[in-house]
Every structure is written in C-alpha cells, then in structure tokens.
C-alpha cells in the first residue's frame, strides 16, 4: 500500500492514525484459545465483541472491592459504587460528545433502549396532556427501513398496533444501500418518528443520514438512530450526527453483556413519560399516585446493572486510548482487503456494498448454494467463527431472496491473516459439498 506514491497535497497514508494490532490482541485473553485444534479465528464481532483484560479487571475489581447498591446509601461502599456508576455515565457521555451527562440512560441493551422510546410514545398517547411530539394515533406514521434488525422493527410494529398508527419503511437497493428516492413521500407531516439503523448488522452499509435528518426536521418528526453497529467501530458525535435519540449496546464494544445506552436530547427525555415503574425512578410516592425523577433516573427503575455499567466505562476508556479514528481506519483497510479476497472465491456472492466506502467491516455472503449452516459448520471445524442464519434481519434475507446468509465481521483485533483463514476455509467448504 505504501509503495503507491500518493501525489503531494493529497491525504497521505501516514496521515491516518494507526495502532499495533499484535499489541491490541495481547489484551484479549480469549484470542489465545484454540478451537477444534486450530487457532481461534473470531469473525463474529458484529454479534458480540471480545473483552480486553482492562475491562475484565474492572468488572472483577468492582465486585471484589466496591460492591454496593447505588443512589441510596450513605455508607462508603455505596458512595464508591455510586461514583463509579455515575463516572461511567460521564465517560459514555464524553465518548459521544453528549452536551449533558444526564442525556445518557443506561439500559439492558439496544433492544430495551428502543422499546423505552416506543413505550414512551405508547404511554404518552394515552394522556391528553402529554407532549404532542410523543402522541400517536390513527393517521400518524412511523418510518423505519427494510434493513433494520428485528429490534428496530418489532417494537414499532407493536406500537402501531397499540396506537392505530401506520408503519412505513424505506426500501433497500440491489446494492444494499438505503433507497432514499421516495424520501419526500415517505417522511411527511404525518410522520412522528423515523427510526433507522446507522450501520446495518447484515449488509454492513453505513447510512448517510443528513438528507433524512433535514427532511425529519422539515416535517417536525423525531429521529432515532440504531447505532449498535456504529458506536463500537467509528467516532460518533451526537451533536454532529444531529439525531434525537441514539441507542447502542455495551457487549459489541468490548464491554460486558447486560448494559446498553439510550442517548436522547435533554428536552426530549424530559418530555417523555416513564416506561418502567419502580425504585430509583420516582420523585415522591403516595398510595394514590407518584411523581417522577428527572432523566436519566426516570428511565432506570430498579437496581441497574452497576458493575456492567462501570465495566462499560472501562471499555470506553480502552477504545478511547486506542482511538476511534484509528479503529475505524483499521477496519476500513480490513474491509477493503476482505472484499477483494472474498471476491476471488469462486461462486461467492456478497450481499451489500462491494466497495469499502459507506460500509463497515461486516460482510455477508453466499457460497454457491451451500447452506450457511453448513458453511459455518465446516469453518468452525477449522477454528473460524462466523455467524450464519438470518441475523435477526429476516426482511433483508427476503429482499435478497435467500433464507440465510453467512457473515464475517471484524473489529480492532482482527488481522488480514484471519481473513486469509476464512478464504482458505471456504475452499474446504467447497470440497465437502461440491
């Protein structure tokens, strides 16, 4: 790559921040494992990422040294736990460039975060005095897209069933891009919320949102971006992104399972009715009625996943230490390499963009007519871990006329050698099934 002379005045290769992949890999204990007698080749980070020692240590340390419930104790341990939990919130807020720490709501995962917004709409729709931005009824519309994960489809289907609103969606082009050609007719004065995936978990497509955002603002709707696949892999600045809500999950970004984030504009969170009722989310409670705490506490009923949040803070520190821009470029190079390598495999069809532009390091494909389950099984026998199936995005599979796909996905610890192992493994799949 460096042998190609880039004309002076153009961005140079070394202008891009980089990191030492071997050193990063040394931070992840699981990468030393062998699978079926072969070195682990983990190409399923879009499903869940591995965790570096720095995160595992913080998780263990929290339980070993600082364990207590948060936001309710005056004792020392309770104070330490609360400081760690709120400290994690501040880290996440800084990571997103959120204007206020109080705009970060901890959830269980992206799915729960989307459901909180959907149920806030639902609850607001039952009250005449609720904020009109959240009131939905017959004649109103919710807009999603055909490339959503089920978690950004089903909550809206259910919301529309409850309220009588209509669900509409952006189609997907043959190239696996969002088809924005019908934007003006799709997003209209009837639209109350547009909920879109930022980066597709199956096609790898990264959606350019500025045109959509402009239209959303024009018609006075709200915009939620499902950033489950983008926050772990590229720098995200919520001010720059100009969405109203974003959601993502900790376990895909080197953090633990059981912790996710709903980020919302402060004034919108303040206008949203609560969804889960219980401890921590109240202002005062009488037997007849209750009043509610300000966000984010309003949306965090019950004891939260404290250690998980603290460890997510450690994951944010870890990623920030390496640099999100460096991670983004590492994956861009891997993606370019993988697209070319997979393109050389006979009878392999890639679903989604085949150029490393406007896409991330998640590549789904078909190998002839060999079923993805069989592809995955043979690859597993060689230590190569890929995801097979419909990837919780059945409409995308239907769109491309297949019941399932095989998916390889990359992260900061992925190497080109691992992509070579995938390509070699695919030759082995051929030998079994040809």
């Amino acid at each position, binding site marked *: 790559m460096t042998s190609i002379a880039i004309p002076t005045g153009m961005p140079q290769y070394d202008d891009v921040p980089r990191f030492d992949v071997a050193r990063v890999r040394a931070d992840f204990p699981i990468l030393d494992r062998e699978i079926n007698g072969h070195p682990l080749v983990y190409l399923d980070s879009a499903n869940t990422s591995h965790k570096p020692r720095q995160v595992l240590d913080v998780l263990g340390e929290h339980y070993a040294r600082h364990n207590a419930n948060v936001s309710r104790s005056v004792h020392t341990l309770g104070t330490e736990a609360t400081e760690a939990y709120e400290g994690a919130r501040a880290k996440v807020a800084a990571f997103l460039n959120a204007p206020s720490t109080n705009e970060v709501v901890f959830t269980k995962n992206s799915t729960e975060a989307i459901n909180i917004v959907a149920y806030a709409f639902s609850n607001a729709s039952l009250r005449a005095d609720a904020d009109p931005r959240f009131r939905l009824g017959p004649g109103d519309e919710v807009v999603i897209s055909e490339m959503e994960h089920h978690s950004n489809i089903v909550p809206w289907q259910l919301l529309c069933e409850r309220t009588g609103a209509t669900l509409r969606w952006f189609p997907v082009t043959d190239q696996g891009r969002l088809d924005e050609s019908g934007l003006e007719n799709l997003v209209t004065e009837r639209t109350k919320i547009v909920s879109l995936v930022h980066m597709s978990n199956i096609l790898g497509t990264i959606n350019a949102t500025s045109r959509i955002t402009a239209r959303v603002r024009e018609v006075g709707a709200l915009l939620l971006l499902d950033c489950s696949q983008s926050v772990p892999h590229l720098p995200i600045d919520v001010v720059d992104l100009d969405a109203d809500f974003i959601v993502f999950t900790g376990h895909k970004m080197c953090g633990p399972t059981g912790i996710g984030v709903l980020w919302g504009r402060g004034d919108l969170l303040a206008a949203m009715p609560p969804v889960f009722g219980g401890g921590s989310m109240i202002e005062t409670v009488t037997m007849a009625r209750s009043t509610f705490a300000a966000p984010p506490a309003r949306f965090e009923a019950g004891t939260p996943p404290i250690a998980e949040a603290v460890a997510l803070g450690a994951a944010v520190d870890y990623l920030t230490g390496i640099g999100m821009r460096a991670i983004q470029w590492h994956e861009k190079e891997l993606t370019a390499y993988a697209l070319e390598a997979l393109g050389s495999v006979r009878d392999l069809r890639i679903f989604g963009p085949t150029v490393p532009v406007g896409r991330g390091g998640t590549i789904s494909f078909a190998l002839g007519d060999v*079923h993805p*389950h069989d592809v995955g*099984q043979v690859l*597993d026998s060689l230590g190569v871990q890929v995801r097979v199936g*419909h990837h919780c995005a059945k409409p995308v599979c239907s769109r491309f006329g297949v019941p399932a796909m095989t998916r390889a996905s990359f992260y900061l610890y992925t190497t080109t050698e691992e992509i070579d192992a995938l390509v070699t493994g695919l030759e082995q799949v051929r030998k*079994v099934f040809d």
Partner: protein
Amino acid sequence: MQLDQLYQEIILDHYKHPHGRGLRDAEDSGDHVAEAHHVNPTCGDEVTVRIATDGAVLHDISYDGMGCSISQASASVLHELLRGRGAGEAFEVHEAFVELMSGRGQVTPDEDVLGDGVAFAGVARYPARVKCALLPWMAFKDAAARAGVGVSPEVKA
C-alpha cells in the same frame, strides 16, 4: 471435532440426491391428505411434510423445503423410512429417531429400525444442529396428527 462424523457420506448423498422430494397429491382418491409446515426460527430453515393415508397405512410421505444439508437429508431419510409403513410402526421409528437425536451422542442407534437414519448419530453431538435434523420429523408428527393417524403430538416425544 471430527467433521466427517457430522457430514457422513449417507447424509451428503441424501442431501445431494434427495429421495421422494416434492409435494404430491394422493394416488388413491380415498386417502386422507394432511400437511404441516415447520420453520426453524433461528436459521430460517423450512420444511413442509405431507401425508397421504387411509388411516392405517402411510401411503405417501412427500415433502418440500429449503435449508441446510442436515435438515434436507433428514427429510429424505424420513420419506424413505416411513413411506408405506403402518402408522404404529412409523411412530416407533419416529420415537427411535427422536431418542437418537436427544441422546447427545450417547445413544447407539438400531440400524434395523432407523436404516439410513443411523447416520445422524453424529449430529446428536452437535446441539446446534439437532434442531435441523428434527425439523422434518416434527413436521411429520404434526401432519400425522392432522391426518388423524398416530397418537396425539402432546403425548409422544
């Protein structure tokens, strides 16, 4: 892992050259025909199994579907093993196959009962694939219940 234990030649043969594939009408117009369509929600595999029976004998078992080698080969084996059998006999084979697949590789299959089905003994060691192998057999059970033969699906495995 021993890949060839999972992908036995018999399984690959049934997958590449399925026996009796395609949904058929009953040859005897007096037969009762019923079918069941099953999907595996985790992978999207689908199979439809149709039974033509006079109530005592399963005159035809036809099927169609799409899915992995294990699920499609299993449908082919099911067709071959159970077509033309008496209902009671067919359910004994069904039970033996379900037992084999639930045995985590600890059950020694009886070739006299299961025929080519013994090749699936290796599949039982792969929990992620057991559902694939069972998919057509579960569809068969439902189709049989709808055709009014055999025992209630709630009672049998």
